[in-house]
């Protein structure tokens, strides 16, 4: 099993992330009003430019793989599309130029995603609506059209179907829905598929409730678009096959997931409050957990490859050595670390979400979690594909300010070990 690559990017939560098409740069929201672009410098990521335009927290970023444009959205109810241009003052440099998006919403924008053809994007919002945006040549801005019905609360997540027309949306009214976003100026009529035959604007092609009434945090279409999965705050994952028809709900023993992606037609990765990405696999006949991408039982120092993470539980006597002297104990070292290195002031130091005792797989040792991420994972995204189209590497960012790149295959060997954790 190969170790994940972990980078300590910031001492603040990372709200969203998106890689450039060639994976040499990274756009991040560091829980602030500006989006930052980072470039790889040796092993570490260094900030190279700032996308400054929003005046509230940037909630989501997406980087179009073909057209190389970035779109950001924010709690200030705006979104901007950023294009690369050469700097007029020094032509060798590139700068990012924002283009206005006319959203016309009266609540925060929560998530933004480019459509597969990159000629549209969707913005989810707290205004009980989803804005579908397309470029208006005449006005030189991005115009939007809203889907409002039958959404009853904040839309928390969206995901595009590969046909560029269907959009899945998860909302705080405990439902996941599939909408048509057909714009006759932009789209060609899509052929019929498992979600329906005709797709006029804002048709509801599917509506599914979360089983025990949790907010739907994340939605995702399978690579073919024939299945949809969503995870909600009741610690469940639901996978929907409209063709079968089958709705499979997995009640997990762990804390809720807030983000998920499909890695293949029969596998998905979900991550969230348990601080570790979990791999699930299955088909329309049934789904089961395969394992964690994080080796929570392994020796932490050997499989943790970060260059800049102080992980020794304490100074002096070393991690596991017997405590010598009255002051050389865990609590003392904790305060000493807080004083000399400021470690406990990191927002990512959790008070123990997911205690190891209660079925969750994350062990706690000396206040630190046995997982690579030390706090909730906020987003998981595909990083690398194999030639046949399955995702081989995924990237995650978390509230602990870390960026981690995981091998999807790392989870497979863990199945028996994890099954024990689940079923005891």
């Amino acid at each position, binding site marked *: 099993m190969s170790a994940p690559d972990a980078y300590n990017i910031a001492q603040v939560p990372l709200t969203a992330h998106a890689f450039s098409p060639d994976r040499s740069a990274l756009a991040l929201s560091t829980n602030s009003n500006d989006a930052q672009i980072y470039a790889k410098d040796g092993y570490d990521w260094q900030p190279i430019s700032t996308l400054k335009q929003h005046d509230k927290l940037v909630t989501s970023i997406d980087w179009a793989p073909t057209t190389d444009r970035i779109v950001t959205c924010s709690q200030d109810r705006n979104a901007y599309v950023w294009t690369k241009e050469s700097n007029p003052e020094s032509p060798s440099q590139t700068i990012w130029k924002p283009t206005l998006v006319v959203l016309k919403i009266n609540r925060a924008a929560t998530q933004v995603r480019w459509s597969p053809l990159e000629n549209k994007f969707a913005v989810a919002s707290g205004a009980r609506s989803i804005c579908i945006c397309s470029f208006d040549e005449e006005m030189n801005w991005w115009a939007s059209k809203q889907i409002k019905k039958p959404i009853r609360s904040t839309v928390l997540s969206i995901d595009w179907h590969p046909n560029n027309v269907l959009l899945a949306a998860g909302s705080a009214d405990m439902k996941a829905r599939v909408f048509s976003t057909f714009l006759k100026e932009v789209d060609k009529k899509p052929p019929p598929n498992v979600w329906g035959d005709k797709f006029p604007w804002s048709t509801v092609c599917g509506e599914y409730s979360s089983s025990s*009434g949790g907010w739907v945090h994340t939605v995702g279409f399978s690579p073919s678009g024939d299945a949809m999965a969503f995870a909600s705050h009741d610690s469940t994952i639901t996978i929907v096959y409209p063709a079968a028809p089958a709705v499979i709900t997995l009640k997990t*023993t*762990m804390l809720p997931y807030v983000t998920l992606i499909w890695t293949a037609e029969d596998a998905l990765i979900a991550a969230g409050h348990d601080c570790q990405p979990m791999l699930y696999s299955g088909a329309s006949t049934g789904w089961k957990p395969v394992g964690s991408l994080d080796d929570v039982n392994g020796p932490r120092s050997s499989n943790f490859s970060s260059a800049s993470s102080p992980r020794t539980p304490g100074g002096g006597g070393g991690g596991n050595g017997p405590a010598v002297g009255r002051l050389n104990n865990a609590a003392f070292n904790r305060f000493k670390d807080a004083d000399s290195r400021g470690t406990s002031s990191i927002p990512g130091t959790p008070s123990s979400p997911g*205690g190891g005792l209660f079925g969750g797989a994350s062990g706690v040792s000396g206040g630190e979690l046995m997982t690579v991420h030390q706090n909730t994972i906020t987003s998981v995204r595909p990083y690398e594909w194999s030639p046949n189209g399955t995702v081989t590497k995924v990237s995650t960012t978390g509230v602990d300010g870390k960026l981690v790149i995981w091998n999807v295959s790392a989870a497979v060997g863990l199945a028996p070990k994890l099954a024990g954790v689940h079923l005891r």
Partner: protein
Amino acid sequence: MASSDFRKINIDQYDEDQLLEEELYEADPRDPATVLADAKSKAAGVRGLIAKGDLGTALNSVLENAPYGPKVDDAKILTLQTLLLILNSTKPAEIPTRVKALSSDCQDTLMKYLYKAMAMPGYADVNSSALLSWHEKLTEVAGIGCIVRVMTDRKTV
């Protein structure tokens, strides 16, 4: 000291399109009278099963189709009393077997009743030590996911 009265203002009442509680989950298809009748017949059946010592079947019958939602408070209380009768008559050593035999839906319902009972200290049959040992065993089997579902589910028992 600053007044905190503004926190008690229901700002949603001015919203013409407010999200109502009943839109968040599907209502019980049975009407309240049927629910109460069901709860009564289950209670009688459970007493018979306890007398025979068949606590597993008794537990399952109470937890399946347990009453939820508004206007069925009497049925909810009766179901809680019936359930407490079973919980208190189970030997501590048998609890893990009983818990494992339940379906995951029934485990979630059991957890809801455990929290409901713990919120009513001093109520007739509430025996905190029995509740805590059931809670411990149930959490070992169903995980914290089960507790999360009790907190999120609007279908309160």
